[in-house]
């Protein structure tokens, strides 16, 4: 993964980039990285969401924290950068569960709920989900290249794979 010329997306944050800059986010655990991409103008956005739904829990001013608010905010910013919603495509990664509790009966882990929420929101917005690498028990670092539209996913034990 080439880190030069890359824009880092922090947890609960989102960023927009144009080729040749890359978008990168490190250490996705149960969080989900959502890469949106307009192939015509090569404008991309990457969100690192933490939780599925802004309407649950205490009110938060941080749009980037939740799947529902982050995707909407990301699209808005991408449109300002010249992308068109009708052309957007998505690739996602993350939503792992690294800790397994013997006394924990909640099968529906936060990671899984995050992935399901993102899939549902993309479906509602009619943004095609071209590829995903989700679930499992490993943390992921991801990088999106707006030039090629490729999402590279890295884990600690199985190297890199490309979506």
């Amino acid at each position, binding site marked *: 993964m080439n880190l030069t010329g890359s824009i880092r997306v*922090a*947890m*609960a*944050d989102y960023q927009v980039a144009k080729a040749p800059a890359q978008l990168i986010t*490190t*250490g*996705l*655990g*149960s*969080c989900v990285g959502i890469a949106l991409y307009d192939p015509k103008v090569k404008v991309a956005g990457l969100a690192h969401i*933490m*939780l599925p739904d802004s309407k*649950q*829990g*205490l009110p*938060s001013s*941080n749009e980037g*924290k939740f799947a529902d608010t982050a995707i909407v905010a990301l699209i808005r910013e991408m449109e300002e950068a010249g992308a068109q919603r009708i052309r957007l495509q998505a690739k996602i990664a993350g939503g*792992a*569960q*690294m*800790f*397994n*509790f*013997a*006394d924990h009966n909640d099968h529906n882990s*936060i*990671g899984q709920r995050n992935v399901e929420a993102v899939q549902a929101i993309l479906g509602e917005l009619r943004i095609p989900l071209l590829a995903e690498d989700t679930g499992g028990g*490993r*943390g*992921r*670092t991801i990088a999106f290249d707006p030039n090629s539209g490729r999402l590279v996913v890295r884990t*600690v*034990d199985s190297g890199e794979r490309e979506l």
Partner: protein
Amino acid sequence: MARRDNLLLGSLELDALREAGNIGAGRAATVLSKILATRIEMTVPKAQIREVWDALELAGGAEQLVAGLYLRFSGQWRGSLLLFYSQEAVASLLGRMVGGQVSPLLELNELERSALEELGNILLANFLAALSELSGLYIRPMVPTVAIDMAGAIIQEVMAASGEQSDHALLITTELVEAEGGARGHLLILPDARQLEVLLEALGVEARE
């Protein structure tokens, strides 16, 4: 109880938390010293309130491979403890506990993994026991679990679990230093939403509005 999403702790509160952290860490160090038959020192250099996502930096790099020992606790005080060890620290600690050549972190066998889990259980449960005595709060530790992965991914999963209703976390960074082997760990305390004032009140410190 007032919402404390924008809580800024004064030096009095931070001192109380640091002291509580020191007492808990001291107890854990004593127990670990006995198990490993070596001297363990624990220090609590920092107690601070951080935005949840800022805490990632404290892991020493989000992509660093670490062993994370995670323990949820409930009762009159609720939250999570997370203890990080580097690959070198795990090798040193397990070498003393189970003896012989220790496998690389990503290839720990069943025995090594359960020894690590047991170590975490003893350390974290003793930390909580000392905190419970100090505060008078009944604290019930749950079964601890181990994850070996990128530090950022581990801390983030724990924060998602405890930060579901809050944007802030109390991080008491504790260093656990083994006198001979030099194994250093970092302990993070993550009270659930609105649980920080429960502890402060029990410690006899009134948090400011």
